[in-house]
């Protein structure tokens, strides 16, 4: 132990003695370790940290697999939920949550819309959570007709009710019905995501629980102890087959499967994290190669000292240990600096965390992140220290003592090793730069891609009409008509329209259709998305009219049903024909449901994501029939800043119904930005890490050549004495650097081509083997390499042969 401490003391002293080297090495390592710690802290939150539910690893979400109809991840029907719950042998319990939803809170100041969920009474017991105070839902709360009760989020209780300790038993008005508050959840609790503020029992009726046609639930279940996910999926598949036999109309080709809750929450972030972890791993490897190279170069100056130690009786293993201790001593302050930097980066990185993860958990420091940083610092110290340590400890004692601290360094083997390390750095940098270039090109393509609508100068808000107040169709139509009429007349408003969903919030509703004259077409396969809109919605979003006409004022209540379809639907159903004037309907082919006439074809809109291809879609005017999808999004195109109009528009809505909450007021452009932000962040991060890799690789090449010039001073002198011109010397050093670059570039490009497939899922509008991306990074790195070579090469050109030849 005392010798170990002596090694540590000696290591610290060595570092203090060479402050320039120490500062440089610590800075380079800090960058590598900080990047790793920051991304690990993100991965810790999303992939490792326990979800705040009891025994969360046993929680799964259950989905319907309707791949045959284009919905592989479909929200289950209440019928499916009821049958899965009663027939399965693998789940301890299963609960259902309404998919989406909100409650209008009135009678508590300004009316407001609260994001909330109707849930089965057992939801919190499935999650293993009890309220902070009050009681959980009981089975009797979930019976249709039972007294309405509600549980509040901690945030809502504090914000809306001032943390009232007497809240239990208080009646509040939700959607114009009285609900008694029976509990307040614990601070930080959230399910299914952090926006939800209120939960009420579903009170499913028997009819609802026998309905397989309406897919509007999320289902969460707890696996029995010891039951694997595969076993659960096998059991679900068996039940799905049974349901297919028993209810062929609704359940033909419909499967079921479970996904661990964590995977469900992590979603696409999981693969993004793996890519980022790979990237920071590469950065750290490059940093290690850099420092290993520096240590090898420093070894030249320490040859005599180490030879002396060997001569005085130190074993080679002792020398190796001492050198390794020095490396680790170098890595630990870098680890501390890295940890600090990653704490500062936490807020920025927090934006990458999906909203399903507890806001309170953040990306902050915890024991696991701390342990990771210590472990990675130690591993880094050993990684960059081990090769130089082994190499140096093998020095030739006699020669070293005779030559002193001469120029011969650690021999040609050492030179080859240094070259190999630089080749590795270049290869790693090429891989990382290629990945970043692909992502940047992809992001550019996405950013400039026409989404099918114009988001600028459009304000969006939601006015969901509660069924309790607007049960009948006519008052709803009247509300929308009045609001639109009032808003359109506001100065500064160019157009206004209602829609059931604005782009980027949802694919939209969906409905099977029958096509006139084509009874052979399977209505289950023809399931276009459906948007219920007002007359000017298409104009408000400036969606392109391709053919025919838009919805007009004449398409009102009691007039023949009309619809607009998008280009994809026109292509799919009437290929090579003019779809204008064609008819389709949503019911059975033979029933009396009226045919709907196609009056216009509009451009495809990327509804589900800018990089998600458009599906077949139809738009129908809200006034013609009660389709079941409420047009609750109001969109307003303004002449100036849309947010400046928000209050005026709100007043017009309240002039129609003073109790109507207005929620989600934001510019449509912000929705587009929100959609792009995670991808932009991933691209920026990857770009930043690639930039770091480029810098480190350039430093590596510079370091090796710089050292080489010092080492070859005498040789350069000899060459000049033998007739070499200064240009010959410049060429020689540049070609030495370029040879290293070329070797690294070839290895890097081959590896990058192989690894780019991992990015395929993330790429849009650019192929994973895009030659321009690979060529551009190669040229960039070549240019940086030339610059890095040029500085030492210039120094080599200036070597004075007379001085060099006297150089010992």
């Amino acid at each position, binding site marked *: 132990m005392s010798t170990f401490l002596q090694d540590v003391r000696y290591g610290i002293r060595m570092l203090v003695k060479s402050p320039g080297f120490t500062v440089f090495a610590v800075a380079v390592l800090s960058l590598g370790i900080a990047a790793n710690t920051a991304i690990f802290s993100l991965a810790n939150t999303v992939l490792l940290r326990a979800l705040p539910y009891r025994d969360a690893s046993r929680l799964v979400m259950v989905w319907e697999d309707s791949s045959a109809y284009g919905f592989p991840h479909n929200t289950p029907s209440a019928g499916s939920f009821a049958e899965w719950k009663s027939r399965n042998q693998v789940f301890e319990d299963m609960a259902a949550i309404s998919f989406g939803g909100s409650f209008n809170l009135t009678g508590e100041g300004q009316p407001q819309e609260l994001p909330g969920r109707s849930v089965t009474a057992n939801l919190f017991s499935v999650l293993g959570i009890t309220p902070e105070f009050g009681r959980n839902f009981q089975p009797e709360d979930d019976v249709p007709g039972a007294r309405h009760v509600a549980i509040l989020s901690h945030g809502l209780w504090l914000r809306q009710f001032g943390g009232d300790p007497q809240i239990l038993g208080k009646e509040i008005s939700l959607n114009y019905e009285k609900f008694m508050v029976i509990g307040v959840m614990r601070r930080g609790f959230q399910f299914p995501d952090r926006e939800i503020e209120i939960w009420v029992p579903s009170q499913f009726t028997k009819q609802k629980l026998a309905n397989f046609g309406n897919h509007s639930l999320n289902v969460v279940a707890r696996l029995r102890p010891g039951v694997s996910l595969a076993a659960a999926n096998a059991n679900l598949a068996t039940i799905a087959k049974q349901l297919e036999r028993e209810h062929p109309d609704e359940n033909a080709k419909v499967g079921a499967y479970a996904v661990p809750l964590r995977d469900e929450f992590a979603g696409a972030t999981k693969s993004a994290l793996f890519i980022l972890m790979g990237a920071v791993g590469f950065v750290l490897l490059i940093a290690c190669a850099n420092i290993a190279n520096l240590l090898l170069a420093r070894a030249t100056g320490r040859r005599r000292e180490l030879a002396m130690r060997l001569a005085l009786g130190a074993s080679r293993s002792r020398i190796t240990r001492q050198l390794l201790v020095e490396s680790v001593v170098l890595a630990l302050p870098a680890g501390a600096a890295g940890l600090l930097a990653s704490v500062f980066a936490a807020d920025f990185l927090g934006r990458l965390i999906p909203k399903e993860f507890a806001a309170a958990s953040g990306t902050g420091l915890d024991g696991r992140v701390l342990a990771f940083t210590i472990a990675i610092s130690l591993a880094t110290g050993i990684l960059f220290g081990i090769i130089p340590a082994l190499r140096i400890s093998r020095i030739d004692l006699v020669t070293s003592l005779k030559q002193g601290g001469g120029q011969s360094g650690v021999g040609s083997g050492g030179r080859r090793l240094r070259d190999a390390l630089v080749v590795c750095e270049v290869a790693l940098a090429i891989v990382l730069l290629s990945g970043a270039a692909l992502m940047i090109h992809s992001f550019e393509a996405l950013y400039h891609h026409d989404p099918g609508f114009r988001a600028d100068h459009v304000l969006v808000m939601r006015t969901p009409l509660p069924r309790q107040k607007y049960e009948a169709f006519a008052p709803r139509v009247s509300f929308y008509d009045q609001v639109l009429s009032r808003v359109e007349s506001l100065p500064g408003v160019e157009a206004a329209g209602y829609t059931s969903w604005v782009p980027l919030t949802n694919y939209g509703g969906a409905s099977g259709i029958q096509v006139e004259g084509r009874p052979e077409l399977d209505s289950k396969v023809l399931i276009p998305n459906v948007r219920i809109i007002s007359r000017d919605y298409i104009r408000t979003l400036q969606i392109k009219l391709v053919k025919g006409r838009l919805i007009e004022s004449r398409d009102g209540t009691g007039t023949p049903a009309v619809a607009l379809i998008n280009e994809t639907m026109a292509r799919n159903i009437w290929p090579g024909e003019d779809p204008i004037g064609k008819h389709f309907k949503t019911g059975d082919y033979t029933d009396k449901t009226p045919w709907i006439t196609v009056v216009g074809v509009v451009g495809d809109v990327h509804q589900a994501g800018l990089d998600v291809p458009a599906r077949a879609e139809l738009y129908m005017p809200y006034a013609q029939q009660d389709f079941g999808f409420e047009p609750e999004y109001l969109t307003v195109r303004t002449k100036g800043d849309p947010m400046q109009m928000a209050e005026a528009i709100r007043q017009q809505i309240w002039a129609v119904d003073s109790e109507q909450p207005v929620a989600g007021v934001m510019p449509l452009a912000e929705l587009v930005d929100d959609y792009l932000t995670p991808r932009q962040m991933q691209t920026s991060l990857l770009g930043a890490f690639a930039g770091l890799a480029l810098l480190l690789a350039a430093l590596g090449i510079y370091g090796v050549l710089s050292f080489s010039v010092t080492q070859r001073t005498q040789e350069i002198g000899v060459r000049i*004495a*033998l007739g070499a011109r200064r240009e010959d010397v410049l060429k020689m050093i540049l070609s030495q650097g370029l040879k290293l670059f070329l070797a690294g570039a070839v290895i890097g490009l081959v590896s990058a081509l192989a690894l780019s497939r991992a990015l395929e899922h993330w790429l849009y509008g650019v192929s994973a083997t895009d030659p321009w991306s690979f060529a551009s990074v190669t040229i960039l790195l070549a240019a940086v390499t030339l610059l890095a070579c040029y500085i030492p090469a210039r120094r080599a050109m200036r070597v004075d*042969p*007379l001085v060099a*030849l006297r150089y010992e």
Partner: protein
Amino acid sequence: MVDVEKSYESGAGKTWVLRRINLEIGDGDFITIMGPSGAGKSTLMGIIGMLDGAWKGEYYLLDNAVHKLDNRRRVELHKKYIGFVFQQYHLLDSLTVAENLDLPLSYRDIKKSERDSMVADVLDRFQIVGKKDLFPNQLSGGQQQLVAVARAVIGNPKLILADEPTGSLHSSQGKMIMDLLKGLNEAGTTIIQVTHNENWAAYGSRIIQLADGWIISGQTKVGAA
């Protein structure tokens, strides 16, 4: 050389390295430069060999006014007429004997095939064909200096500058090298050597004594040993 001088500025003012060097060396001479350390011997060799450009005065090499030439022309002149032999041999460790011999040729516009034949000739002439693929560290000191002399003559220089060519060799090896230089001189090559050894100095036809940058004697004619 006419009034050649070299100095450099230091904190203490101008420091002279060479003062008023007036020296004429004839074609086929074998000159020995002697003097204590710091006398300016190597500096004078550097100027004669055109490795040093920062000096004053006039220097004519075979009717070429070196002092009027730019660096590029000096390098060309150097490549055409001068060969170097150093005390520490200065063979490149990473190159084989044959590659070391090829090195000065590679800096001239000579085709590879022609260079190969010149290298083969020299290997033969110096009887080191068997060693052509060995690296310098596989040779003795004498053998290394033999290769270094071979490298100096491979371009058929008119002038060989040998800076203490035997300084790192024991006497028998030293004699071998000096005999070799003498033979080259007799074949017509002008030789200028720097040495501290009286015996090796005697190989030359004339000794120039330097001290503190001045030529203190240079007219004495000495017979061959």
